[in-house]
């Protein structure tokens, strides 16, 4: 890029920024009162008691569920497009996009094999789908898609798992997956081995919920005040969201992998060494 072009670009950028700042100052209404207090905003972000969204007129649900459906739709659409247009053109020596897809599919192979060397095929599939759902779902928060709530107010769709029901679903499904795998591989022993960690679904659910909600709450706080809602969200919103999307996907898949390895571990029966009682005569002869 030439020096002249750099100067022109910098001037255009500065003009846009100054224009935005002027706009912010001119549109500021000092008499305007916030409709919701920060407490109400935070409480609603956690509990979703007031801001509900109608699910095709059948039921009023939390925005997280709608976000979940949209994320699933986006992921499946992407998968269908890839299946139709990309996979048939796969080559032995992969291109960039093929390499990304193969890396994503094979991302959990090493972890799955390492933690459960004897049975890992189903585990790596579960890790792939759950990890993708958490990652894409958390990144979905960045889009800031708004829908109209049942109360008529717009509501921004957050991550599906920042909804407590979604987090409970993920925790319980994971626990159920571990229970069934333990039962199939190690019969009752594997089943009861997982069952004794009954706190696992609660801890998983609440940890997921807490982690994802905290990201959403920090973003809410930043956006609540007008003067922090410009510039700062670039760092807070994008960097934090991407970071905890990665971290949460990694943590859940790692936990699943470790517990799965324990549940499906094949215990080899140890042969009991029979103690041979020696006769007194043999003992005396040895002495």
């Amino acid at each position, binding site marked *: 890029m030439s020096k002249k072009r750099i100067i022109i670009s910098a001037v255009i950028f500065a003009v846009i920024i100054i224009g935005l700042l002027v706009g912010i100052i001119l549109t500021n209404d000092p008499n305007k009162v916030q409709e919701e207090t920060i407490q109400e905003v935070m409480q609603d972000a*956690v*509990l*979703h*008691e007031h801001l509900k969204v109608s*699910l095709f007129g059948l*039921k009023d*649900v*939390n925005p997280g*569920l709608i976000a*979940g*459906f949209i994320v*699933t739709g986006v*992921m*499946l659409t992407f*998968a*269908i497009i*890839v*299946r139709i247009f990309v*996979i048939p053109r*796969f080559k*032995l020596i992969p291109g960039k996009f093929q390499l990304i*897809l*193969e890396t994503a*599919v*094979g991302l959990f192979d090493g972890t799955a094999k390492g933690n459960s060397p004897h049975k890992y095929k189903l585990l790596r*599939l*579960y890790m*792939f*789908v759950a990890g*993708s*759902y958490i990652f894409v779902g958390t990144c979905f928060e960045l889009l800031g898609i708004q829908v109209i709530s049942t109360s008529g107010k717009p509501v921004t769709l957050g991550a*599906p798992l920042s*909804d*407590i*029901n*979604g987090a*409970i*679903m*993920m925790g*319980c*499904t994971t626990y159920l997956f571990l229970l069934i795998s333990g039962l199939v591989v190690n019969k009752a022993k594997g089943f009861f081995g997982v069952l004794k960690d009954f706190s696992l679904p609660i801890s998983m659910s609440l940890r997921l919920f807490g982690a994802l909600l905290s990201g959403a709450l920090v973003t809410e706080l930043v956006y609540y005040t007008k003067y922090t809602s410009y510039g700062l969200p670039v760092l807070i919103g994008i960097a934090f969201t991407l970071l905890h999307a990665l971290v949460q996907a990694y943590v859940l898949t790692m936990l699943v992998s470790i517990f799965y390895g324990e549940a499906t571990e094949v215990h080899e029966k140890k042969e009991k060494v029979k103690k041979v009682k020696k006769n007194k005569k043999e003992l005396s002869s040895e002495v």
Partner: protein
Amino acid sequence: MKLPLNIDVQQILLHLFNFAILFAGMYFILYKPVRKFMDSREEHFKKLEEEANSLVEEGEKAKEEYENRLKSADSEINAKREVAGKETFAERERIITAANEEAANILKKARDKAQSEHDRIINDAQKEIAQIVNDATEKIVLRSDLDTYDQFINASKKEEIDE
């Protein structure tokens, strides 16, 4: 069923339904085909590696066989050389013996021929000598007879004259 913290079992089930669809969809649409391709490629390269290994193994075997052959060829050549040497020596001996025999034969024949020639010459010479002697004797005899006769005639003629 309404639970604290706005936990709703129906919504949990809806989330589960959503996740189940996602799980099945991702498995059949994306994960399985990509994994299948990756496995087939792994299989392909494993096959190629096996083929390469078997080729290397075959090459090593061929090399070993070649070296063995070289070694056996050396010993074979030595053995053949030895046999050829022996054969050559035997042939030489045979040729020399044959030559000696032939020479002896030739010599014998020559001697025989010379002897027979010698005998023939001697015989001829003897015959000739005998003939010569015969002739000479005959001549001598005949000459003496003539002389006597002549002397007689001459003497008779002389006497007649004298008379």
